[in-house]
């Protein structure tokens, strides 16, 4: 009697747990169903490598936005990853307990601040700074990268910290006992041992940068053209959707869903790589 009840219960919880899979399936299906017809009409190659995005003329090429996404994200990673690694090492190896607790809350706050607030701060502080001291319109790839570099810090720091903390303490003790300095131990023992966790952290951080919309809309300038320098404005895949979804209809709207497909595929690939690295350990 009890056994039968437990089995029913198990089935119930199993059905609830399927919600994640069904949600993922429904999201994917609905985005694809909306977007694929347009990709078919335009042609996949022309859609992805097309240089001109002019919905009013029926031209849907998203290559400039792919370039925008890749450069802004690359810049963000270039600035954000070293900073995040420093902070993670600080938290796990150097910080006294009180400072560590304080700093964890600070990073948690950094993660919680709405992205529009970052965008606004960038718009009123970073953008004029770039315009005045480095030239160009200020609304630029550099501004986007700087804002995103700050925004991906919490993701990279928290995952790196966890993987550094989960190393057996024997690694550190052994290295120190052999006469290595603290930094030699960190650089030659701890970081290499936590390599896979750190890689996953960086990939997930990059995923966040690719997916961020509102902050980037406010500082990137949103011009649909191939940028020539990091001081030029650009448009990313996410901002393309964010700006135009407000008024798009018909084929134009489908094209934005098609942009969403490209975004979704990029994120899924990164996410699978990150999970593969973590699982392999």
């Amino acid at each position, binding site marked *: 009697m009890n056994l039968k009840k437990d089995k029913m219960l198990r089935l119930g919880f199993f059905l609830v747990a399927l919600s994640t899979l069904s949600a993922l399936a429904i999201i994917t299906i609905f985005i694809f169903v909306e977007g694929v017809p347009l990709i078919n009409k335009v042609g996949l190659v022309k859609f992805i490598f097309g240089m001109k995005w002019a919905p009013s003329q029926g031209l849907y090429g998203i290559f400039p936005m792919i370039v925008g996404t890749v450069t802004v994200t690359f810049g963000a990673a270039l600035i954000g990853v070293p900073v995040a690694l420093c902070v993670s090492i600080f938290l796990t190896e150097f910080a006294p307990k009180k400072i560590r607790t304080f700093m964890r809350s600070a990073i948690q706050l950094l993660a919680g601040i*709405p992205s529009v607030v970052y965008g606004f701060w960038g718009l009123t502080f970073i953008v004029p700074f770039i315009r005045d001291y480095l030239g160009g319109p200020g609304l630029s790839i550099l501004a986007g990268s700087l804002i995103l570099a700050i925004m991906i810090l919490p993701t990279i720091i928290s995952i790196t910290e966890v993987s550094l903390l989960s190393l057996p303490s024997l690694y550190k003790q052994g290295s120190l006992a052999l006469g290595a300095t603290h930094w030699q131990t960190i650089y030659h023992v701890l970081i290499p041992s936590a390599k896979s966790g750190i890689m996953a952290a960086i990939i997930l951080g990059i995923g966040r940068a690719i997916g961020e919309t509102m902050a980037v809309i406010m500082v990137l300038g949103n011009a649909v053209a191939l940028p020539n320098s990091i001081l030029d404005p650009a448009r990313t895949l996410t901002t393309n959707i964010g700006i135009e979804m407000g008024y798009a209809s018909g084929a134009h709207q489908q094209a934005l869903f098609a942009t969403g497909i490209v975004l979704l595929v990029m994120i899924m690939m990164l996410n699978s790589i990150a999970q593969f690295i973590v699982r392999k350990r």
Partner: protein
Amino acid sequence: MLMRPKTAEKVAQTIIWSVSILVVLLLFFIVSFILIKGVPTLTWDFLTQNPTQSGRSGGILSTIVSTLMVTLVAILVATPFGVGTAFYLTEFTYESKVTKIIRFSAESLAAIPSIVYGLFGFIFFVIYLKLGWSILSGGLTMAVMILPTIIRTSEEAILSVPRAYREVSFSLGGNKWQTITRAVLPSAFPGITAGIILGIGRCVAETAAVILTAGSSLHMPESLFDPSRTMAVHFYILAREGISMERAYGTATLLIIIILGINLTANMLVNRFIAKTR
């Protein structure tokens, strides 16, 4: 490695300390930048009056109510699914293909950009289910978005409940349901609550997904089917269109205060939880 080990040690320590201090200073700079200009705006009238002239004057009451309603829908829907999934993963099954697929789905949901959630919510809830731009559409979209957060934190909370609790319950003749609800759930409760609170934080801060699903109407919502504008969306529109910088700063200040309060509450719960289980 041409540097002498002791010199390298000094250099590395200096760099790591200064970078870390710089990050904290940067956070202070961003937060104080908003607060200094925003706190004077945060008057009682600002919080209790509805916006007028598309936000140029008046307060932000309707956006506060909208935020609360969207968040409430999201939490009410996501909590049973999130906590249930966490219980399934921890109490009902061993690691298998099925758990791998469920975990993979949850991690993927966590990785999907919010603007894609916006697209999905728009085509699925707003158009396909004919809910229109509404609190319900916005809340349901946010529910899917915070599901992974709730699953992950609940799972951690459940896993850290000592095994003995379950064994005692079973040995006293408790069945699975009694064990879960009376032995495991009470001690995992603070941890689970912390996860829900973090989910609230994400709902309050979200803009991209909400603007496409709940809309941006400034009217005071009267039912779940009304369109609405949350605080984060309001801030975005005020700032981007330059409608009222003063009110934009005020709204952002309230957002930051709420997020700070949410983080502190969640941390307190987690700390109490750790103290209790050790």
